């Protein structure tokens, strides 16, 4: 017998490994803990329209960057006859379509799917040095006057930006501001002034996400660098300080769309929000370092869904036998019966199981008078069981009981062995023992079935197979349990107490 210390260490290790892996896979690959959790997925479609001149035309679209709060899970394009490539431009990815001989009205589509995920963070790189801003008169004087008035009241770029924004939105406008706004639109003017004051700022184009909107345009906003992050400033909404429902599309050079060999070009966006099961969004599969069940073909996956429930059943048997003291016929037969119940549903399963075993026992009692050898006896029983099942199936079909047809899901060999065991038990220990052990087996099977059909357990068993390590640890612990069984509390009542 091994020492207690190392044993408990192994148990603890198994528990820890199981839980840690589950936690890791949840946070890293977003495998959801509960079944049926859904996440909002935004499907955004950019529709590019232009009139082709008839020669070679080329379209370049700036693609949305990796950004916090949104995880872009897929992109696709539909553009008949166009060659399509993506490339890394200065700062942002670009999509490039080209066609040799395009004529007339052209339409191109580019679609992305993004999950709104408030916890998702993309590390941001420090922007380059602030470019020199050249002002012409009289704008230089106007800008200087405004900045000189505001600067003493501000601490950093963000507060300056807010102060400026406030002045830009005040009615009536002061005349310097009014002069500047006539020359530049607000989202362009604000970064200029911030840059002049020595703060890094930029104009970005973003899309307001609203369900089922069509033909939307990008809107220009301002971002200020605060030494770690780009902070968003919405010229139209001073209260706004996060990027919720706002998908950044263009952060570098202004201009989202560039068309060569065409005219009248525009890009419009439609969007739709869908709720999709979180499980379908798990990005494990091919690129994870862990061995994953998701990488299997779907048919094998569904088989594993069943296989992964077996340990749950085995645990129920261990629990019932060691802690409760149930007697079952055949150690793990209840698990197999429970697996059959999964196919047949509980009630039809129970009824047909009892019917087959009862009829089987009657026939078996005749076989026992024949004094057959064991193997021949079991083989006979297998054929008898198949016969019974066929007859029941046909009868129930004729009577219009479709439920009766599921009877054929029972494993024939297991049924034959069950009948054999029960019959021997009947002869050796009498019908009472058959009731005790048969009832015990069925009871354990029903408990196992009820657990195995719990959506949560089904979900965890397949999507977190590492939790079986925890189950293993518990079974190991139970294997060393030396305390009393529940049934022993009534068995030993003859003792003085």
């Amino acid at each position, binding site marked *: 017998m091994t020492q207690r210390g190392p044993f408990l260490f192994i148990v603890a290790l198994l528990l820890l490994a199981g839980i840690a892996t589950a936690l890791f896979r949840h946070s890293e690959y977003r495998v959801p803990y509960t079944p049926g959790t859904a996440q909002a997925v935004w499907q955004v479609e950019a529709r590019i329209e232009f009139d082709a001149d008839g020669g070679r035309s080329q379209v370049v679209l700036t693609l949305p960057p990796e950004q916090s709060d949104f995880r872009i899970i897929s992109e696709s394009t539909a553009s008949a006859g166009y060659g399509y490539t993506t490339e890394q431009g200065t700062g942002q990815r670009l999509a490039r379509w080209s066609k040799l001989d395009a004529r007339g009205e052209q339409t191109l589509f580019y679609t992305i799917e993004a999950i709104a995920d408030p916890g998702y963070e993309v590390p941001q790189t420090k922007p380059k040095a602030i470019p020199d801003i050249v002002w012409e008169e009289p704008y230089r004087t106007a800008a200087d006057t405004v900045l000189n008035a505001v600067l003493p009241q501000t601490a950093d770029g963000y507060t300056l930006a807010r102060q400026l924004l406030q002045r830009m939105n005040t009615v009536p406008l002061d005349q310097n501001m009014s002069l500047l706004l006539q020359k530049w639109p607000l989202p362009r003017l604000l970064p200029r002034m911030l840059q002049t004051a020595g703060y890094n700022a930029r104009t970005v184009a973003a899309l307001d996400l609203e369900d089922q909107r069509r033909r939307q345009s990008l809107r220009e906003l301002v971002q200020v660098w605060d030494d770690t992050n780009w902070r968003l400033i919405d010229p139209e909404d001073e209260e706004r300080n996060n990027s919720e429902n706002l998908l950044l599309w263009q952060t570098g050079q202004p201009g989202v769309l560039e068309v060569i060999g065409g005219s009248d070009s525009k890009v419009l966006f439609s969007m739709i929000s869908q709720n999709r099961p979180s499980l379908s969004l798990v990005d494990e599969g091919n690129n994870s370092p862990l061995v994953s069940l998701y990488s299997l073909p779907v048919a094998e996956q569904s088989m594993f869904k069943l296989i992964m429930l077996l340990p749950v059943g085995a645990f129920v048997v261990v629990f019932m036998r*060691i802690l409760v003291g149930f007697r079952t016929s055949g150690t793990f037969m209840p698990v197999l019966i429970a697996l059959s119940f999964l196919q047949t549903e509980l009630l039809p399963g129970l009824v047909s199981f009892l019917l087959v075993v009862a009829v089987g026992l009657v026939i078996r009692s005749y076989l026992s008078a024949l*004094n057959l050898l064991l193997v021949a006896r079991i083989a006979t029983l297998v054929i008898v069981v198949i016969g019974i099942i066929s007859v029941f199936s046909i009868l129930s079909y004729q009577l219009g009981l479709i439920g009766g047809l599921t009877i054929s899901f029972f494993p024939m060999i297991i049924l034959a062995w069950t009948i054999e065991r029960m019959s021997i038990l009947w002869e050796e*220990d009498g019908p009472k023992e058959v009731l005790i052990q048969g009832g015990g087996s069925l009871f354990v099977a029903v408990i196992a079935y009820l657990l195995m059909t719990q959506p949560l357990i089904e979900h965890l068993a397949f999507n977190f197979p590492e939790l079986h390590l925890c189950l293993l640890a518990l079974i190991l612990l139970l294997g060393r349990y030396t305390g009393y069984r529940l049934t022993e*509390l009534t068995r030993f009542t003859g*003792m003085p107490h």
Partner: protein
Amino acid sequence: MTTSDPTSAASATKKDSRFDWISPRQLKKLGMLGMNCRNVRYISRYNERRLYPLVDDKLQTKLLAAKHSVAVPELIHVVSTPHEVESAYEKLQELDKFVVKPANGSGGKGILVIVGRDDNGLIRSSGESVSWEELKRHMSNVVSGLFSLGGRTDQAIVEDLVLIDPVFENVSYKGVPDIRLILFQGYPVMGMLRLATQSSDGKANLHQGAIGVGLDIRTGRSIAAVQHNELITEHPDTGNRLDELEVPNWHQLLRLASSCYEMTGLGYLGADIVLDRARGPLLLELNARPGLTIQVTNQAGLKPRLENIEALESYHPTVEERIDYAIEQFAHAPRRTQPDLFT
């Protein structure tokens, strides 16, 4: 003997409260050995698996016993293959009392007890008559594995019939009673007499309704009687009192049982012994997984006794020393034996 007996009244009231139970703390205080504890701490620790066949196969036990001069019912014949049945038949022609049993049977199944002859052939212990043809068929059934676990081919043992000791004639319904002793490292730690009843069908099997009577390890006198896990005071079939039984040849019986430890090497062992009218105690069979009801019949838990022996610095080398130690340590509290001192 009378209905006003205080113990039977007590057991009657106990039956009324249907959901009687005993708390785990109380069981622990009583030192009761549970099934899990028995399996983990005693059987798997002290019984090597490779030694199991010595006790699971009754023929092996018998041959081993002969080698170690342990008294057993005399082996008359062994039938190993179906064609040996005929030669066995010739040999049995001369006998009129014998027992046919499967070497690997369990729970008393497949045992045929022949007590005499009549015109048709033979008479069973139950009084039915059996023809020689039926006997031959029974033997070939045994050999083909009808009664063995898992239906493996088996051997039929033919042995001398044990004649019931007159002491037990009034307390056993048919069938010969046997004495189960639990041996731990060769020390007899607890004993029990098993009596067949009508509901156990003449078999001394507690699960089937036989009576277990706890025996004082010092004297071989009864302590308490249990049927179906409940205390009783009288034999349900014969009506005889069970609280004043005393097993004769007790010391000889302890010696016989204790020497089974050297014979098998199994540390936790149940020895089943019968008392023959002429030959005294005979070893019937051994069991590597003896049951736990013996504790109720003794009104005492096994655990303190097992732990007592585990705590020994060195085990006593001889059977006699071990028995002396066991008697000194495990004797039943001598309440009833006090008056004996004056007689």
